[in-house]
């Protein structure tokens, strides 16, 4: 299984990390979409498991979650989905989800099952470094890497504590807010990446609000190791629910464009 550190040391450019909600709009189409993303040049996949109350997500990802749940997605099926993706290609996978689903599954068992199915890390959206102990030790002993978030308002003292707990990558949030595509890239992000790079050697991937190849290039030029694009791509699913081929074509060409832009730096 390919680890984050292997991937980051192999790449001589910024990694491209698209986000998808598992089972959006349904299991089979979702799988096709993810395979298309892999074929178009995704380096790492960030995958979400739908939750009834996603407090860190904007409208686009909320709707994706509702579509996934309505099509019958469950945590157990999500793990099956991941296995199928890994059978297709050995690509690193980070999960992004909410704590209650993990807690009800049984945290230890959940992380072990994740690791077995080929997941590299599980980022718990409604946890922070102060209560991360509840999951971080279990994640490590299950064989997962840890990923934690840093936001533009995180103080340096906390960033150092977060970095010390992180062996996957730091998920750096580009702005104060929830997920969702934005026209303009936040102007705080460059300073944040530079600050993180000054404080830690842990890889830094940047997400939230990144919506174009141009944004991705700006993030890459600021020194990020990876760029995470979610809502912009998920919106392409939402807008083409009645035309699957168009949906796949749009996603494929967007990911290819961003990838070429990153490769050209």
């Amino acid at each position, binding site marked *: 299984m390919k680890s984050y550190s292997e991937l980051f040391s192999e790449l001589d450019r910024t990694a491209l990390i698209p986000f998808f909600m598992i089972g959006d709009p349904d299991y089979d189409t979702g799988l096709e979409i993810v395979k298309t993303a892999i074929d178009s040049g995704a380096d790492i996949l960030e995958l979400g498991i739908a*939750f*009834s*109350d*996603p*407090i*860190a*997500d*904007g409208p686009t990802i*909320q709707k994706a979650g*509702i579509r996934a*749940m309505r099509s019958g997605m*469950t*945590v157990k099926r999500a793990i099956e989905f991941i296995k199928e993706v890994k059978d297709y290609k050995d690509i690193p996978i980070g999960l992004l989800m*909410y*704590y*209650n*689903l*993990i*807690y*009800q*599954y049984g945290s230890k068992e959940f992380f072990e099952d994740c690791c077995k199915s080929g997941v590299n890390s599980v980022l718990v*959206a*409604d*946890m*922070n*470094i*102060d*209560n991360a102990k509840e999951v971080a030790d279990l994640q490590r002993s299950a064989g997962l890497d840890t990923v*934690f*978030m*840093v*936001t533009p*308002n*995180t*103080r340096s003292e*906390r960033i150092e504590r*977060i970095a010390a707990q992180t062996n996957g990558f730091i998920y750096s*949030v580009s*702005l*104060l*807010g*929830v997920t969702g595509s934005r026209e303009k890239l936040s102007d705080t992000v460059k300073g944040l990446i530079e600050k993180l790079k000054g404080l830690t050697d842990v890889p830094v991937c940047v997400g939230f609000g990144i919506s174009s190849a141009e944004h991705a290039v700006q993030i890459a030029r600021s020194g990020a190791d990876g760029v995470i694009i979610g809502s912009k791509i998920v919106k392409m699913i939402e807008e083409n629910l009645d035309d699957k081929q168009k949906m796949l074509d749009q996603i494929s060409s967007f990911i290819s464009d961003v990838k070429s832009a990153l490769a050209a730096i």
Partner: protein
Amino acid sequence: MKNKGRFGDYGGFYVPEVLIPVLEELEEAFYKYYKDEKFVAELDNLSRNYAGRPTPLYYASRFSEYVGFKVYLKREDLLHGGAHKVNNTLGQGLLAKYMGKTKLIAETGAGQHGLATAMIGALLGMETKIFMGTTDIERQSVNVHKMKLCGAEVIGVEGATGTLKDAINDALRYWTGHVDDTFYLFGTAAGPHPYPTVVRHFQTPIGIEARQQCLDNIGRLPDIIVACVGGGSNAIGIFSAFLEDKDVRLVGVEAGGEGVSTGRHASTLVAGKIGILHGTKSYLLQNQEGQVFDTESISAGLDYPGVGPEHCMLKDIGRAEYVEAEDKDVIKVFDLMCRLEGILPALESSHALAYLMKSKGKLSSDTVVVANLSGRGDKDVGIIESYRKVTKG
């Protein structure tokens, strides 16, 4: 954070990193001001002269005669705005002002907390936004109008079902993007630390007054305290003063809706399982996988799938007991209270009264019970009429 905000294993602050600085700021401000002489004096003045504290403890003689034991009502329904909610919104609103915040946001289900926040936003000259589910906006239109009259903007939230939990989700999301100038005035003793502690503190006058009124007027402590529980702020407000009085039974009454066995209810402590929602660990109504249920009750104010963490602890250690009252009994006791006492209780508070109605003949005649009449029922008249039409039709 200075402390972990735990009540036993419950509570805590399960929130994204982005909310930590603002919760730390709130915690720091709360501990700085809650005993501060100037803050306490200002809050005390507003509580008396704006909100109408202290509230009376009223001996409901005809209702007592009906049930066969002594029932006293703590009249929070007489407060400005018509419910205990103003105790909390005055306290947190003032805290926001002392912190230099200029904008308020709040969630609301029935609209009582939204209204109480809109009032305080007007009073303190703060721009106020109220997040409310679109379903709730429809069924609580009077409160929506009142909020707008006080100058608040009411933001409709679609979410999955357009009810209270969706409103909280969206208020949290909005706050994440506006942490610099905005204060989130949370409505109940739940949510991430420090809210359960903050809300409890501002609701303690209910219990402190009631305890002293019992000693002064009856000459002894009551045998039973009963209060309705949604998130649990009015209940913790009255329970808190009696926790050390081991002989006083504390009873919380949850919304039994159409009956716990039907699945259409909001009896979190009675029928829930431990989980994590809206930043706190508590009992939770959820499916086996952990997806949170939508609740059902005739009283929108109790329609919440989680519950305050301190109530979870009080249940586990056996200090308080939690039961449910079904819609049909709530309606029955609402009528009874109107006819016997000329008091229109809120449907939420009627849950506490339903417990007393069902205790008829089961308690000795010298038993003294204090029920927290947390709000008045004017807002519910339309709901009761349509409930009657449906059940008769």
